[in-house]
């Protein structure tokens, strides 16, 4: 009985379809359908108080109006560029931090109990809401905040440092604060699956610590790095709350632009914007996937 009986295979397949069906349906109704709707609305003519089905590319044209002049970039290009910058900065910082912490947890902490305890410690900030965690930066970083009080007190600066709050710095800081965990968890997960004997082998072969890190651990953690990167990049690309709160509402991001458009009932325009954003994010994800074959690795 090396091969299964011919009749059991289709039965098996049907079973699998049934098992996949509930989630497929949820996916269809709550993800695919709304997405298609957004795509459809992005081609509807704009009106302030009515949605009238139709077909026009006007929304996309409006979005990229004046974008051919690269000397003075248009609103859309500037906003996308600024959003991309935030994503890259947040990605870089969370990657370094997340990797370092995961490395420490996976290879330096010996006992499983201690690992678990430290891991839980990392999640503590997530017990409060996003917005509260962000707002708590204000009394710390403000013009009359603790940090400035301290710097003035020790005589390091004469005037309060203004760029600590409501600046690109504070936005990235909040991103790092909020999203390092999303990088840490998948990397830690990958690292725990690395066969420890490989490290011993590297050691025996005379590799230095850096060589082991670079040639053994990093390549073997790349699935985690990739998953974490996708998390962080996609979240930051769409974020509008953090940029709003930490940027003093005067730093643009694509998410913020979409939010303003929807609050002014410009749904078709917002939909067009959302479609473009989705395309950009998908391109990033595809590009990342080219570096690692996720399906093979998982």
């Amino acid at each position, binding site marked *: 009985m090396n091969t299964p009986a011919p009749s059991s295979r289709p039965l098996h397949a049907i079973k699998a379809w049934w098992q996949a069906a509930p989630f497929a349906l949820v996916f269809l109704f709550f993800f695919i359908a709304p997405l298609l709707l957004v795509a459809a609305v992005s081609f509807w003519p704009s009106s302030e108080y009515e949605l009238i089905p139709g077909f026009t590319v006007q929304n996309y044209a409006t979005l990229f109006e004046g974008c051919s002049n690269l000397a003075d970039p248009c609103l859309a290009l500037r906003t996308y560029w600024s959003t991309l910058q935030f994503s890259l900065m947040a990605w870089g910082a969370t990657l370094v931090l997340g990797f370092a912490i995961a490395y420490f947890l996976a290879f330096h902490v010996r006992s499983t109990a201690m690992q678990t305890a430290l891991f839980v410690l990392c999640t503590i900030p997530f017990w409060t809401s996003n917005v509260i965690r962000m707002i708590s930066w204000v009394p710390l970083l403000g013009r*009359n905040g603790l940090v400035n009080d301290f710097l003035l007190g020790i005589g390091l600066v004469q005037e309060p440092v203004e760029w600590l709050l*409501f600046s690109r710095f504070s936005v990235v800081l909040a991103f790092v604060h909020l999203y390092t965990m999303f990088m840490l968890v998948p990397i830690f997960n990958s690292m725990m699956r690395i066969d420890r004997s490989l490290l011993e082998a590297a050691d025996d072969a005379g590799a230095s610590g850096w060589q082991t890190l670079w040639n053994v651990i990093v390549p073997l953690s790349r699935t985690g790095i990739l998953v974490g990167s996708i998390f962080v990049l996609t979240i930051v690309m769409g974020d509008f709350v953090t940029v709003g709160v930490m940027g*003093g*509402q005067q730093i643009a991001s694509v998410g913020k*632009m979409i939010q303003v458009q929807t609050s*002014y009932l410009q749904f078709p325009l917002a939909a067009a914007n959302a479609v473009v954003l989705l395309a950009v994010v998908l391109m990033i994800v595809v590009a990342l996937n080219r570096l690692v074959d996720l399906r093979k690795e998982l």
Partner: protein
Amino acid sequence: MSDTTDHPSAGLKRRSLLTGTAGILASGLAPAVHAQEKPVLRYLGTAVNQDKAIAEKFKADTGITIQYVAVTTDDVTKRAVTAPNSFDLIDTEFFSLKKIVPTGNLKGIDTKRIKNADKITSLFTTGTIAGKAVGDQGTAPKKVIFLEGEKSKVFAKSPTQFMSLIPTVYNADTLGIRPDLIKRPIESWAELLNPEFKGKTAILNIPSIGIMDAAMVVEAKGIHKYADKGNMTKAEIDLTIKTLIEAKRAGQFRALWKDFNESVNLMASGEVVIQSMWSPAVTAVRTKGIACNFQPLKEGYRAWAAGFGLPATIAGKKQDAAYEFINWFLDGWAGAYLNRQGYYSAVLDTAKTKMEAYEWAYWMEGKPAAQDIKSPNGDLLAKAGSVRDGGSYEQRMGGIACWNAVMDENEYMVRKWNEFVAA
């Protein structure tokens, strides 16, 4: 009437409310009273107006529960346009009506069922204060308050029986300042963009209101004189936004704010010393013991007004309860409560009866406080002897330069505003 036995304390008041509209109201309410099932009113509005004390007092007086649904100014409009069945009573601003009424989602309010309808201040019905016309640039309430019929989608040119919104609160906004940090008199809107306050100013990030503040500044600086600040041409929008962008790139603004509490925090923490501000926000800063002025300016005020509206689908018991709430609201207690917060109530006569004489003199007549002025929650707002910013009701509301508005070029304006935010 069985309700007197159910609510002995409220009975008399209830009965007096009913007299005018006995037929309809009684037939709708009586069964509800018998069944002890009072309707719940879903009240959609911004958090600023949704006071717990008002809902509690109304419940105590009538047994009807108010369920607050708090969203931002923009979201009120959005919900009214997209989900008109998600509320039983809307509390929105008059300028939003230009977007909501054409959808047919609002039902005209029958003024015959509103006891104090004829006592609503003339500012709303004729656009006058003490017989004198006030500025009507922008969406002045008198332009949008009357509908042609109960189910009308257009505004009536002259008074009719049906109102789009029953006005509740209104005020005239100006700049808020920190006198302790500025240390000199501020007299003009132009100061908002004065480089002297570089990095210490803020402006409202609700485009349709923020651009009006910007327009006040542009006029004050003598850059341009608008035919109607509340209805700019594309060229005027471009000019206004250009002025804002230049200031922003020069580092003028510390932040933009969208939410009442944000403006309070910016001012109280000293991040900002001069900004567009709402009167109750100034009050909130003051109750923290921090000096803050709601500064009258020579160019005048930007006024706003909010009111109650009914969704088109409301009917039966719920509708009766909504009318009862509106009538209760105009009956004085709520009006006095709002007046004590620095707002103005739509029916002043009834509010006056619920306020102490010294309170009325301070809040409405611009006289020095005879004794300490306290907020409705008992916080100290002003010491005896101080005078309200902006003087009397007639001085302040008479100084209106324009009203919050929705422009014909609104879509273009929002796009340009986004450019300002992104600059």
